[in-house]
């Protein structure tokens, strides 16, 4: 066995003698900036960026199995018996929180909810101290919704528990992205290759847009985006989508369209003249929907401003799969909880990492 020799002590008398011992690093060397180490840890689901095709399809398969089991009834199951799930919702949410809570209860987990109002956070406690306390209480999985982009990464870095991102700022909303993929897989008879989704509206502020984009790209579908230039973030093409000039151009021949929710606050920041103008130029009307392929569907992550992003006629049409999205949400979140629970390390007394958390798959 060879052991590398330690280099000799520096000889100050001849500084030049040591020249060349240290190779010149390129800027950025030593810190792998493009790595996503937290992303790749299977205990967490922080975003869809970086997830591979096989990983995503496995989750979708698991979600379909869950959907069948939920339809057959007999809840609660005991997949997550003994697993404690904390729902940390530091930003208002109804459907995502309820959906996660139902999913966790259906699988037999112990569920507790922490919301901003009335919590220590509103008394000035830092997020770091809050999560330290939560960890001390022996939580296995944290589902987090936060207004700060990257907050789930912060938790994943400072807690040794699984972290599931339930929407962070304007970054990602991976479970929404997965349930959109699940809905599209049904609509597209299981085939993503060669399909195209048009994403319409406020891309800049949309976490749903980013997750949908990363997910569809991984599965081989393409994405066209369109919206007011004031609501398109800089360098968005770098995410792997194409930009269309008009909503008609984006929807022509598309296999699905997703209208993104438009926050009314956008008017105040000088980003948009009026809701009416947005509806006229970028709203989904029956005429525009007819530009898409024959079997194309309409998605909306909700909550919807009827008459703004989507006309009532389109929302209620047979093309709309908006309620399918909501229904798939519970099953999909069951699959995600099970996956992250199965990957978690052994904790506490007599708890086994080998609980049949992954059996849903």
């Amino acid at each position, binding site marked *: 066995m060879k052991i590398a020799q330690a280099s000799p002590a520096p000889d100050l008398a001849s500084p030049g003698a040591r020249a060349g*011992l240290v190779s010149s690093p390129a800027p950025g060397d030593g810190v792998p900036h493009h790595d996503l180490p937290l992303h790749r840890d299977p205990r967490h689901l922080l975003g869809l960026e970086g997830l591979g095709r096989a990983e995503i399809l496995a989750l979708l398969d698991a979600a379909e199995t869950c959907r069948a089991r939920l339809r057959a009834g007999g809840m609660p199951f005991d997949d997550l018996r003994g697993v404690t799930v904390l729902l940390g919702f530091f930003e208002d949410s109804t459907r995502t929180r309820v959906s996660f809570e139902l999913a966790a209860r259906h699988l037999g987990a112990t569920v507790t909810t922490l919301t901003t109002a009335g919590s220590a956070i509103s008394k000035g406690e830092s997020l*770091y101290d809050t999560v330290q306390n939560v960890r001390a209480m022996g939580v296995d999985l944290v589902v987090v919704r936060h207004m*700060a982009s990257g907050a789930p990464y*912060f938790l994943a870095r400072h807690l040794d528990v699984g972290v599931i991102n339930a929407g962070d700022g304007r970054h990602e909303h991976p479970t929404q992205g997965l349930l959109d993929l699940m809905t599209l897989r049904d609509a597209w008879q299981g085939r993503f290759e060669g399909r195209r989704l048009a994403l319409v509206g406020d891309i800049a502020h949309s976490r749903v847009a980013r997750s949908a984009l990363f997910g569809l790209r991984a599965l081989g579908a393409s994405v066209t985006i369109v919206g007011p230039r004031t609501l398109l*973030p*800089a360098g968005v093409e770098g*995410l792997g989508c194409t930009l269309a000039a008009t909503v008609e151009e984006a929807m022509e021949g598309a296999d699905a369209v997703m209208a993104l929710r438009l926050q009314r606050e956008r008017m105040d920041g000088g980003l948009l003249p009026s809701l009416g103008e947005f509806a006229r130029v970028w709203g989904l009307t029956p005429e525009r929907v007819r530009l898409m392929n024959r079997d194309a569907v309409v998605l909306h992550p909700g909550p919807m401003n009827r008459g703004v992003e989507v006309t009532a006629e389109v929302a209620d049409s047979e093309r709309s799969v908006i309620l399918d999205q909501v229904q798939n949400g519970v099953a999909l979140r069951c699959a995600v909880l099970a996956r992250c629970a199965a990957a978690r390390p052994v904790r506490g007394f007599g708890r086994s990492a080998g609980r049949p958390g992954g059996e849903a798959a």
Partner: protein
Amino acid sequence: MRPITLIRNARHWRTGERVDLGFREGLIVEDPGTREAGSVIEAGGLLVAPGLVDLHAHLREPGDSVKETIATGTRAAAAGGFTSVCCMPNTQPVLDAAVQVEWVRERAAAVGYCRVHPIGAVTMGQNGEQLAPAMALRNAGAVALSDDGRPVVKAAIMRRALEYARHAGLPIVCHEEDPTLKGEGVMNEGFMATRLGLRGSPNVAESVMVRRDVELAALTGGRVHLAHLSCAESLEALRDAKRRGLAVTGETCPHYWTLTDAAVGEYDTNARMNPPLRSAADRDAIIAALADGTLDCCATDHAPHTADEKRAPFDQAPDGIVGLETALALTLTYLVKPGHLTLQRALELWTDGPRRIFGLRPVRLEPGDPADLVLIDPDAGWTVDPERFHSKGRNTPFAGWRLTGRALATVCGGRLTHVDPAVHVARARRDAAAAPSTG
């Protein structure tokens, strides 16, 4: 901080010649063969250069001694090879009155490890409304005026400040940032911000203010020094100003020639600073502007924060990184080693350049000059370990980086303010017959 009487066997930073330097009463003297009590440094061929100057540091005192103190900040400066630090007035209270400036100078004289030149505020409380007393601030020892940490938003106030500062003969150090264009931006606007879902601040948030202040320099004849320039557009504006012969100078910081916004990675708050890390094209433009002389000097923008403050979600963390203890090595590793700058030019950016801009006493290593100098091993390899910093701040994006070049000993006013254990310092042999009875 023992007095040094002699440095033997150093290599002159400009000529490369072997030199011995003798000191008496804080000055370099003609005859190195002094017999006064003191210590002798055996330089063993190390490079000797004038002590480095940082035009832009946040020493945090008074008011934020949990982040840094004058003692710890100047100790960090000495370890980085600096003998002079100009400290920004965004303290609590703000350095907007003579008494505050005097307090900083007295405190530094009592506990400091280098010369501290305070920078006074442009406006009272840095509120951007009412002019601070430039004459009183100068008479108390301020070397420049700045509202750094925030811009002087109103053009009319900046105009009046530049006009009035002419009486004091002081430059105004401009933190260039249009708050409406920056909005709530927390990093550079571009693909990385879009990918991470963080709000971006565009290059023009900086460069439109640079353009404004160049025009105001032309109007008023006042001296504008542009702080921490980060992007190509600002450098173009600085070039234009110089072409027109205006009294405009500019600085940049090591992180702008070493890093891009990709360093934010997975929301690393140690890659959060203001102005933010920019694109690779901007980084290259910074290096080019250092090489072609557009930029007049470097500065650290040393901005210590506590670990608690930085341990927060990205958009809630404070801006800034520490820089005093990595500046020299980042200069040698990323500007000199790849051949962008000669060693001499690189060191000028930290020595003659800043001294000229703020009118500090020149240090040419000649008799009569202040005994402010640094011994550098330009080839020493070392790894950045924030736990070993003298600064209270550990907030650096360079932790774990392998760098080349280091200050091994620093002498300020003839006193040894920093020395690496590897450097041999001999107590001078005290000749009983010749030794003076008092020091």
